[in-house]
């Protein structure tokens, strides 16, 4: 991973007391903002990013040079309208884009590496609340998140019910299923099986477990797409060979199929912008996520104090990572507590990733919910 300088840094004045009981001090949160904060600070929208996302929701990524990860949704005149709203997006703790994580200084001049405490989704939100406190924002107009971002939005609503008026959760879940955990474990094992990982203490050596991280990303990437989407995009089509041969198998183990080549490209591209240890810590946090279990085993208990909060949940019919049933489960809990909730399952061909892709109905719902 290359060096870079995030544009905004917030040093939290208080240490974070984590769910594990450990204390994380000198916490730094890297964040981006878009639009102007109203004088009464009533127009702030917090966008929470997903597992491998970052604070560059609507601006160029400093390492890849690619546009923001949700630029089609966030901007002037877009569904999350920065002409009217002050949008905040912060890198979660445990990540690697400027907020405190395993690559940060552990207090002795050396990176934390595996000395970094295991964190939870709620701990990530503790960091975000710390940022909001520093920005003087008591109540958000809305908290918005897809995938792991949705978990943070739910956690914020459940644990800090007076901090957001609206909660928008897209393609997410209130708990990680056995299948979710299983896929993450494959990724973690791939990283830890890479000899370059060396118990996570690779920062000084200059060699990173890029091969393991790439395999982790490849496995995860499959879960973000639908079978239908993969078939439409690649089918069994073959890659052009380096020697110019077209449409022939190699009787070897090069990337014969286009889908193999695509996954390899996704995997290697990812290792240039993401820290392997961050991947371990964040996937762990997601696996530990079970909002009901945090609240006495009953999901409705999580939303007992949310009657003045408006919720909107959106799922996609081809998302098999966090299928519609998971969103419905949350909706039923919100119905049980009488919280105002909207829910819709949208039809989209691209599986879990659909929330990042153009979708007219999604735009209309996001805009309507945030304006209503």
């Amino acid at each position, binding site marked *: 991973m290359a060096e870079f300088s995030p544009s905004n840094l917030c040093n939290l004045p208080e240490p974070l007391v984590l769910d594990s009981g450990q204390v994380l001090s000198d916490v730094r949160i890297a964040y981006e903002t878009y639009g102007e904060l109203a004088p009464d600070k009533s127009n702030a929208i917090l966008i929470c990013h997903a597992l491998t996302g970052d604070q560059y929701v609507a601006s160029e990524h400093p390492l890849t040079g690619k546009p923001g990860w949700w630029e089609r949704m966030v901007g002037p005149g877009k569904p999350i309208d920065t002409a009217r709203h002050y949008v905040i997006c912060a890198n979660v703790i445990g990540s690697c884009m400027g907020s405190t994580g395993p690559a940060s200084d552990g207090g002795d001049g050396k990176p934390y590496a595996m000395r970094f405490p295991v964190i939870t989704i709620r701990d990530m939100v503790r960091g975000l609340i710390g940022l909001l406190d520093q920005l003087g924002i008591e109540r958000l107009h809305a908290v918005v998140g897809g995938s792991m971002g949705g978990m943070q939005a739910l956690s914020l609503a459940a644990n800090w019910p007076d901090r957001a008026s609206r909660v928008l959760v897209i393609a997410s879940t209130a708990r990680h299923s056995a299948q979710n955990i299983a896929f993450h474990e494959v990724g973690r094992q791939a990283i830890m099986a890479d000899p370059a990982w060396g118990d996570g203490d690779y920062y000084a050596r200059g060699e990173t477990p890029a091969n393991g991280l790439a395999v982790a990303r490849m496995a995860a990437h499959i879960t973000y797409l639908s079978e239908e989407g993969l078939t439409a995009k690649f089918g069994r089509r073959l890659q052009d060979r380096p020697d110019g041969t077209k449409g022939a198998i190699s009787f070897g183990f090069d990337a014969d199929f286009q889908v193999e080549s695509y996954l390899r490209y996704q995997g290697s591209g990812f290792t240039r912008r993401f820290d392997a240890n961050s991947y371990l810590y964040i996937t762990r946090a997601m696996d530990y996520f079970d909002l009901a279990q945090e609240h006495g085993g009953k999901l409705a208990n999580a939303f007992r104090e949310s009657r003045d909060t*408006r919720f*909107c949940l959106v799922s996609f019919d081809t998302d098999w990572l966090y299928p519609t049933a998971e969103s*419905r489960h949350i*909706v*039923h809990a919100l*119905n*049980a507590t*009488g919280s*105002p*909730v*909207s*829910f*819709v*399952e*949208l*039809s989209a061909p691209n599986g879990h990733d659909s929330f990042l892709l153009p979708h007219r*109905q999604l735009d*209309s*719902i996001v*805009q*309507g*919910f945030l*304006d*209503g």
Partner: protein
Amino acid sequence: MGETAASLRFDLAVIANAIADRPGLRALDIGCGDGALMAALRDDCGVDARGIEIDSGLVERCVARGLSVVQGDANTDLAEYPDKAFDYTILSQTLQTATRPDLILGELLRVGERAFVSFPNFAHWRTRAALMFGGRMPVTRALPVNWYATPNIHHVTIEDFRDLANEVGARIGRSWFFADERPISSAGANWRAEFAVFELSH
């Protein structure tokens, strides 16, 4: 936006007017469509209105107008709501499409203190005449779709409805009857009314 009770379909206008003077009241509109009634209840009456709608395109329109609507199936999803969560449940022109109208009626009064139910009356003289003289399943203004394509799988008459209400232990309160989209008296309603709206309680 700006839906008013005056611009509502006749049966919805009756329901909006019936609870117009009760701000803060909680209502669940089952099969809420594009949310016209909910918007009127919210904007004109200050009602805390929620909705259930099966069609994602219609849910989208509801959310876009700032309403709280859950995509779901009235036949199964009412079970997820706690007892007496609402002052009123509303089922407009949906009863005759239900898999089990009797069970839905029970659920309406479990989830709500009171319920409004509106439906097309199959015993209207036009329907009777169409069957009697045409000898085929009636296609009328109130029931405009052929038998094979109609969503109305459980045709019901006003007298049938009274019997069912009695059977499920529901007490009929106010009632309204319509022909040509205009209110008519209750006299001979089972012949004369194309549509009926009933208020139910336990």
